[in-house]
């Protein structure tokens, strides 16, 4: 989908010829700035093409001239002393004026594009508040009262207007394929950016401004979906957590603490089905993710997880009494706002700021020892035998692997 | 022997392209650089003016919403006007000291150098008084943006005055030890340039920080 843009291809082809290495052109480039999928991206691209064309001409002219001079005027034995010219006013005026003219060709469309792209967004635009945190993204849809993290759903064909703020240091919001970027500088004075996605797909987003230890691990995903899918997504996100905590509680307590694993498993099998599997949650089908949006980050050495399956119902109970609630919101369950909102965490494709795929194993290991999984993270380790990373916040839980697997199962069920 | 600067400037075997001594050119380059230094400090003060989230404030009273405590406007313009006058007078004394050294007038060179130093020290005394009374009134360098920018700006100016006073005292010491004559004029000239520059900076600070509300 990224390969059908001739200008980019031409550019690559031209430069790689110069470079005599065809390798770069062969690789798939999912995050390229070329062939953008929004009018903002197109505006940026048009200028970039212009600059590359003019730059390419200057490159060929200057380097060609240099090559010619170097080959033609090399000293040969018996060369007489060359003519001692000191300058040539006509020539010098010419090569002052030509660059000036070229720059005028760049300046005019530049200024026009600046004002075009920084106009006020249309009034009926979808509002999205982006809040940068060290090192994850909070996304809010104020028109729909939905808060999510690290994954952003946008409808195709509708202008989205971002207000960008930071919670701590400066970050930068960049989705190369949709256009960008804009820094998140202030806490109370937002920056703005708007564009209209043109096609439905999955895009990678990055933090582009160095923001501390895990700057490289502050990634996000953008899903541009058809309008009706987006509406379904929003409706689903507006609903409460998919796991019916109220139902699970009596079930679990009735069985008592020493409940037979079989019974617990039955609960686990039945309860997550509560929202109904046929219901359209609007989320991107996890099996249709392109390769570049599935994280490949290797697990840290020295971190183990012995439990393989968890019990969501037990996990729900554990979660309610855990320190997790101080930082994470699950609608109707916990109020914390320091970390990402987990109300529908199970519907996301990644965890840890786009660092790991959102599956039971990674989720469990994340809960067990987040500081090992992501350098500098402020979420403390929870596992009983989780190694304490030097400099990380002190461990806050003493959960066994089984208990952690239970919590992971619970969180995964929050589709 | 005079200061090394003097030695460097006056050694006759040193040819200079402009005919001016090196120190004179160097001090102008230094002053040019210092202009940008103080301009940045003053600009920061002005940019942050009115942006402090808590008081006390320079020109307006403030009531701490937490404690109900009242704070007066911090800046005391009459007192600072007096200290500004003192510093201006020191520049006059500096001019007279320079002219006495050029004339070779040993007696008045000492008197005017001492007066300049004394007036400079008086200005510093005013500043010490100002700083302590501000701290008593509740404004410290850590209190708010006003405190940070104000103390840093005026503090750096005060440090420049202090260096100037030390320079004056050193020169006075040399005067007492062996007397300053016309061949020392260039050194006093360079010192005077520095002193007048520091004075001019203060005029800018007094106008932009104290007078304009």
């Amino acid at each position, binding site marked *: 989908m990224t390969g059908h843009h001739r200008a980019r291809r031409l550019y690559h082809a031209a430069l790689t010829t110069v470079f005599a290495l065809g390798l770069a052109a062969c690789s798939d480039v999912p995050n*390229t700035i070329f062939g953008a999928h929004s009018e903002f991206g197109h505006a940026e691209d048009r200028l970039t093409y212009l600059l590359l064309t003019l730059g390419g001409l200057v490159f060929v002219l200057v380097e060609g001239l240099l090559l010619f*001079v170097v080959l033609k005027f090399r000293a040969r034995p018996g060369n007489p002393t060359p003519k001692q*010219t000191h300058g040539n006013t006509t020539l010098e005026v010419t090569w002052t004026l030509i660059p000036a003219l070229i720059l005028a060709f760049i300046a005019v469309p530049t200024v026009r594009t*600046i004002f075009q792209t920084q106009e006020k967004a249309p009034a009926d635009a979808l509002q999205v508040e982006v809040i940068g945190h060290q090192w994850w993204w909070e996304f809010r849809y104020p028109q729909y009262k939905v808060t999510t993290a690290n994954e952003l759903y946008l409808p195709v064909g509708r202008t989205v207007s971002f207000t960008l703020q930071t919670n701590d240091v*400066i970050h*930068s919001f960049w989705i190369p394929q949709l256009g960008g970027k804009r820094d998140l500088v202030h806490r109370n004075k937002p920056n703005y950016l708007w564009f209209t996605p043109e096609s439905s797909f999955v895009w990678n987003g990055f933090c582009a401004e160095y923001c501390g230890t895990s700057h490289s691990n502050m990634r996000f995903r953008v899903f541009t979906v058809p309008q009706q899918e987006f509406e379904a997504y929003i409706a689903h996100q507006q609903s409460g957590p998919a796991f019916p905590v109220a139902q699970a509680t009596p079930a679990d307590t009735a069985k008592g603490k020493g409940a037979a694993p079989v019974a617990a498993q039955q609960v686990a099998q039945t309860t997550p089905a509560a929202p109904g599997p046929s219901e359209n949650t609007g989320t991107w089908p996890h099996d249709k993710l392109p390769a570049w949006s599935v994280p490949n980050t290797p697990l840290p050495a020295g971190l183990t997880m012995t439990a393989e399956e968890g019990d969501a119902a037990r996990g729900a109970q554990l979660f309610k009494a855990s320190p997790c609630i101080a930082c994470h919101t699950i609608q109707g369950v916990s109020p914390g706002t320091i970390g990402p909102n987990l109300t529908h965490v199970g519907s996301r494709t990644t965890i840890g700021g786009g660092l790991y795929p959102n599956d039971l194993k990674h989720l469990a290991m994340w809960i067990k020892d987040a500081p090992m999984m992501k350098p500098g993270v402020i979420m403390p380790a929870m596992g009983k035998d989780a190694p304490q990373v030097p400099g990380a916040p002190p461990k806050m839980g003493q959960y066994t692997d089984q208990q952690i697997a239970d919590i992971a199962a619970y969180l995964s069920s929050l589709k | 022997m005079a200061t090394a600067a003097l030695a460097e400037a006056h050694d006759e075997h040193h*040819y200079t392209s402009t005919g001016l001594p090196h120190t004179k050119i160097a001090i102008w380059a230094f002053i040019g650089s210092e202009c940008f*230094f103080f301009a940045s400090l003053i600009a920061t003060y002005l940019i942050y003016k009115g942006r402090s989230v808590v008081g006390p404030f320079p020109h307006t009273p403030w009531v701490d919403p937490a404690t109900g405590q009242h704070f007066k406007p911090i800046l005391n313009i009459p007192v600072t006007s007096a200290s500004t006058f003192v510093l201006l007078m020191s520049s006059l004394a500096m001019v007279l000291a320079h002219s006495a050294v050029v004339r070779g007038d040993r007696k008045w060179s000492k008197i005017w150098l001492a007066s300049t130093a004394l007036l400079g020290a008086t200005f510093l005394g005013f500043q010490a008084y100002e700083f302590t009374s501000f701290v008593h009134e509740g404004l410290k360098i850590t209190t708010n943006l006003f405190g940070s920018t104000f103390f840093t700006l005026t503090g750096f100016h005060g440090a420049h005055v202090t260096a100037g006073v030390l320079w004056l005292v050193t020169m006075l010491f040399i005067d007492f030890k062996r007397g300053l004559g016309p061949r020392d004029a260039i050194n006093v000239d360079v010192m005077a340039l520095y002193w007048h520059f520091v004075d001019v900076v203060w005029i800018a600070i007094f106008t932009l920080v104290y007078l304009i509300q």
Partner: protein
Amino acid sequence: MATTVAAPRAAGPKHKYESGIWSWLATTDHKRIGQLYLYTALAWFLVGGIEAFIIRLQLYGPNGRIVSAETYNQLFTMHGTTMIFMAIMPLSAAFFNFLVPLQIGARDVAFPRLNAFSYWVFLAGSIFMNVSWLFHAAPDGGWFAYAPLNTRVYSPGLNMDFWVIGLQILGLSSLAAGFNFITTIINMRAPGMHFMRMPVFTWATFVTQFLIVLSFPFITVAVTFLLFDRFFGTNFYEIAAGADPLLWQHLFWLFGHPEVYILILPAFGLVSEVLPTFSRKPLFGYPVMVYSLILIAFLGFGVWAHHMFAVGMGPIADSIFGITTMLIAIPTGVKIFNWLGTMWGGSLRFTTPMLFAIGLVSLFTIGGISGVMHSSPPSDLQQTDSYFVVAHFHYVLFGGSMMGLFAGIYYYFPKITGRLMSETLGKWHFWLTFIGMNLTFFPMHFAGLDGMPRRIWQYDANQGWDVDNHISTIGAAILVVATLIFVINLVRSRRSGARAGNDPWGAPTIEWSIPSPPPAYNYATIPTVRSRYPMWDMKAPELTASVPHSPAGEKEVTVKVGGATAGHIETPADTQLNAENAHPSAHELGIVMPTPTIKPLLATLGLCVSFFGLIWHRHVPIIILGGVIFVAALYAWLLTPLEPEH
């Protein structure tokens, strides 16, 4: 007035500072200080290079695990800080020191002791910054250390303490040198050395020094605020207290953009010396080259916010800074064309310095083109903070500054040491550098345009960046080999290179009229300059005739490169002749030279004590002790005459 050659005086007793280690610690000789700068800066260049190579190894493939995220962040911060403040700037300073007095026909700089002080402060600051490695607390905020990440809240460790204090110390060194060289160039030009006769390197130095003294105040203020915030709890960058994080960016880039020209103009100057010599033609359009230097410097103060197009300044500011940035491309382009004009119709000899000079012209052009791409804010929004920018500034700083500085090193090494560097190794160095440099940095253009953000410790697989990064790392390995060859060449040539004589290249400027290495007093008679290229100017043959040469110097050695005898060097028969003893001493000529002194070094030590006291739990008695040592040394220094009584 110029001293005439007097009858040799009886040599007095040797000063204790005239030999051994003391002769270096107490030196006030601009040539020795220049060499100190040169070798110290090269050492830091190697350190910064090792840091860069570790970065490249980490990025070789996706999810690299060579170093931790914390270490990686320290590495790229220190790589940038080291290369800018401890390698390229002091390498330029080495040439300012060594060359400017020689080029303007002076015996030393205006304030020789201040010059020594500048060097010692630079050495102290660079060591101070790097001592942080021993505490596993090297600076980690990036070389431009944006607020509020640089504040105590977000960088609680010692890391940024080292950075903020280290940068303050280094700034002091540059400022002191700036005043010194401005005075030197204005006031110590030999008779007849009008401004428009000055060698272009001296012009580049002159302009650079103005940039330094006028732009360093901004960083001094920015860093002072940060220091106060971190150590005394002020609020300059405290967001909760109402501070604006952009204050830092504006102050930093008000310094930072002129700094870019501080890094490149000296290299331009060196190349403008090398190209005419090996083209056997005067510099094409000398006046325009001078005016363009001045214009670049002037415009350089008006473009700082082009580093901030993504911060949301609004369309008007974006347009203004975009256009001023485009304007600065014009005088820069003129320089490129004038260099081509210099070579056009010449008789080019491809010595190593010439190859590096041509390397600058070709590679800086690429950096200039990508620079113009950044000047268009909407286009820049896709490029800023991506690897495209990393590619851009390495083409400017490595392809520009370092290529120019290497050209300068090969060109002036014979003047500095009296010996030529090996042309064979030099050419290996050049070609490996040229190839390695392009392999390392060209793919970064692609990586950036393909969405790779800069300063990332790891990147994921399947992002389309693997091949670019593989090639970059291979290129970096080639650069390591190239640099090793350079070091070997430097060490070997210093010990046993062919003797150079006064003027091995047939160069046009007056520094080539005196022996290599020059005697302490440079010129036995202060020369009178009649033209821009006195050594070439047949209208003034008496100029070189009136300069007393050493016996070794009179036998001119020429490197015949190009044509059949490429690389062959003719040396005088008496290679055993010790050039140092071959020419009369200052004593014998009756020239009064500054007395060596360690007082500038003592003053520096006082500063060091203070700064260590500051970082060491803000230990007030130590800070005061250091201050007292500094002031005492300063008084002792200023109250002692520069030269012995005469």
